[in-house]
């Protein structure tokens, strides 16, 4: 049995179904990320795992034991809150030691554990400060320290980096990844930021409106998104979606036409569970900006330039198809294009994605 298992978990507030039958399984030592847009129920799901919210249906198992009705403390999980939730009237030391004190751990052992956590998080010299005397990143570390000392079965993080500035966020992201590697613990991490999800996760759970859209490794989700929602959510800049028509179909390939495509495009099946396309069907063609370029590629699509943004190492070019769909491409180096200039974006047909009219992958 998996280390963490959610079976048909539901949550309703009155008539509002916030979580609609979620099944998730995670192995010991895995870094699992719940990702999805704001309001999709990530926090609610995490809080149900922690025991801070009751489930309206379904079961939760941790380390083989059913914990659905257990009190939070009995589940042996630690949580780092988005707001850190440090006790403002206690020193850093007392904040970290709080849980151990509550479990009546002997004083000497508490001191040892706190010193150990402070060493791991490099904050030995902060122990006597109050939370208000700390920077955002330091508070974040204290919150993590408070989680570490209890040697929980699960570490839960609810958008822990969203209150930090961009630079610190990148830095703390690396620290959390390192912490996971060094401690070898199981972590569940909630974020709305797909970059955090892609960089940290062993396994990503994509949520939308209280339902799981897809579960898989970052590579899986990038290469074989189950639907347009996942395809659009994973990857940055966002995947371009064009409306195309099926011209022909044979076993594992489908041929598409689009007004801006120079020639019919033959796309290979990626193993999705979408409806089988038939000639004449309207489907969605997905092209990632990083797969579109100006030089190489076996296929081409004619575009009218809107704008080019140079980032130094790469340039983002925004264009439009003949049908008025906007397309973004990301090419290396500096580029400048005049507005309304016509140009051809090139790509490999092997890197195109096809989705049926309900958005499910071919």
């Amino acid at each position, binding site marked *: 049995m998996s280390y963490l298992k959610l079976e048909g978990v539901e949550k309703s507030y009155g008539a509002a179904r916030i979580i609609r039958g979620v099944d998730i399984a995670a192995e010991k030592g895995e870094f699992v990320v719940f990702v999805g847009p704001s309001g999709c129920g990530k926090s609610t799901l995490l809080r149900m795992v922690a025991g801070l919210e009751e489930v309206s249906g379904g079961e939760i198992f941790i380390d083989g034991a059913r914990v659905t009705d257990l009190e939070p403390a009995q589940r042996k999980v630690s949580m780092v*809150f988005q707001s850190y*939730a440090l006790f*403002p009237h206690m020193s850093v030391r007392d904040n970290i030691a709080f849980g151990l004190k509550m479990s009546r751990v002997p004083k000497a052992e508490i001191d040892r554990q706190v010193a150990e956590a402070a060493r791991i998080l490099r904050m030995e010299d902060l122990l006597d400060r109050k939370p208000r005397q700390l920077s955002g990143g330091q508070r974040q570390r204290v919150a993590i320290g*408070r989680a570490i000392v209890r040697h929980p079965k699960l570490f839960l993080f609810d958008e822990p980096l969203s209150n930090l500035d961009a630079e610190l966020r990148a830095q703390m992201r690396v620290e959390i990844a390192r912490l996971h590697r060094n401690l070898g613990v199981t972590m569940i991490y909630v974020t709305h930021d797909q970059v955090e999800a892609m960089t940290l996760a062993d396994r990503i759970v994509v949520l939308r409106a209280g339902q799981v859209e897809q579960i898989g490794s970052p590579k899986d989700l990038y290469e074989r998104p189950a639907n347009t929602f996942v395809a659009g959510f994973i990857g940055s800049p966002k995947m371009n979606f064009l409306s195309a028509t099926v011209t022909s179909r044979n076993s594992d390939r489908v041929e598409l036409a689009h007004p801006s495509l120079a020639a019919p495009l033959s796309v290979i099946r990626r193993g999705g569970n979408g409806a089988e396309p038939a000639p004449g069907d309207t489907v969605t063609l997905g092209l990632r900006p990083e797969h579109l370029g100006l030089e190489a590629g076996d296929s081409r699509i004619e575009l009218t330039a809107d704008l080019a943004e140079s980032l130094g190492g790469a340039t983002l070019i925004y264009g439009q198809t003949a049908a008025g769909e906007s397309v973004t491409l990301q090419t290396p180096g500096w580029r400048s294009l005049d507005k309304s200039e016509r140009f051809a974006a090139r790509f490999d047909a092997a890197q195109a994605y096809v989705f049926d009219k309900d958005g499910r992958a071919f």
Partner: protein
Amino acid sequence: MNPRSRGQILHALGLIAVLVFTIFPFFWMVSSSFKTQADLLASPPVWLFRPTLANYADVFADQKVIDAVLNSLIVALGSTGLSVILGTPAAFALARYEFRGKSDLWFWFISNRFISPIVLALPIYLLGLQLRILDTHLVLILVYVTFILPIVIWISTDQFRSIPRELEEAARLEGASQFDIFRRIYLPLGLPGIAVSAIFGFIFSWNELLYALVLTRRAVQTAPVVATSFMSGYELPWGKIMATGTVIVLPVTIFALLVSRHMVRGLTMGATK
């Protein structure tokens, strides 16, 4: 002169007027307490006089005054302490738990205060008589608790509600019991509000006259009762009355100053964000 600084001057003058108006009676009481009877009765009033401690010597020689101050202290500390001990857990429950009848209970706490105290004076007197607790500290403490408890509950509930819920959740995850959460998180973080309500309560009990007059006879006269008792008879010992007044006001002032240290807001800062 530009209009802005003229506005500021008017503003300052207004403030000074209010200040003088509120402080003057207090000043008059304190200064009079140092005057001899002759200076006190002088007309027009004298501003410069040779201060005397005779009135205070008089007051402290009077066992009745000393007893009264002690009685007041016992009653005020007792009723305030009891109200805080009973009121803060109630406020915690009201602030953080949903239970049936919560809003009715809340309204009951408030509606208690709609009734004019005088209406209840006779029933409470009769109750005290039946229970044989008239003229004791206990009867005053119990009656004052019925006034102070709602204040403690209102203010503390409000204060507790402003404590981020995540602190409680974090503590629960760490294995804290409800009582731990109350004692280690809500009480220390709610201290500003609790202190404010304690000051209100203390001042209320200290100054309360109506029930103190009705419910006590000889044994447990409080300071305001004794102060008014000077005003009977043919001669008014103004100096002694003023000195007694000063002695009565002093403890409240000291108490308020002591507790107000805790009223500094911002204790919850740093908890979130």
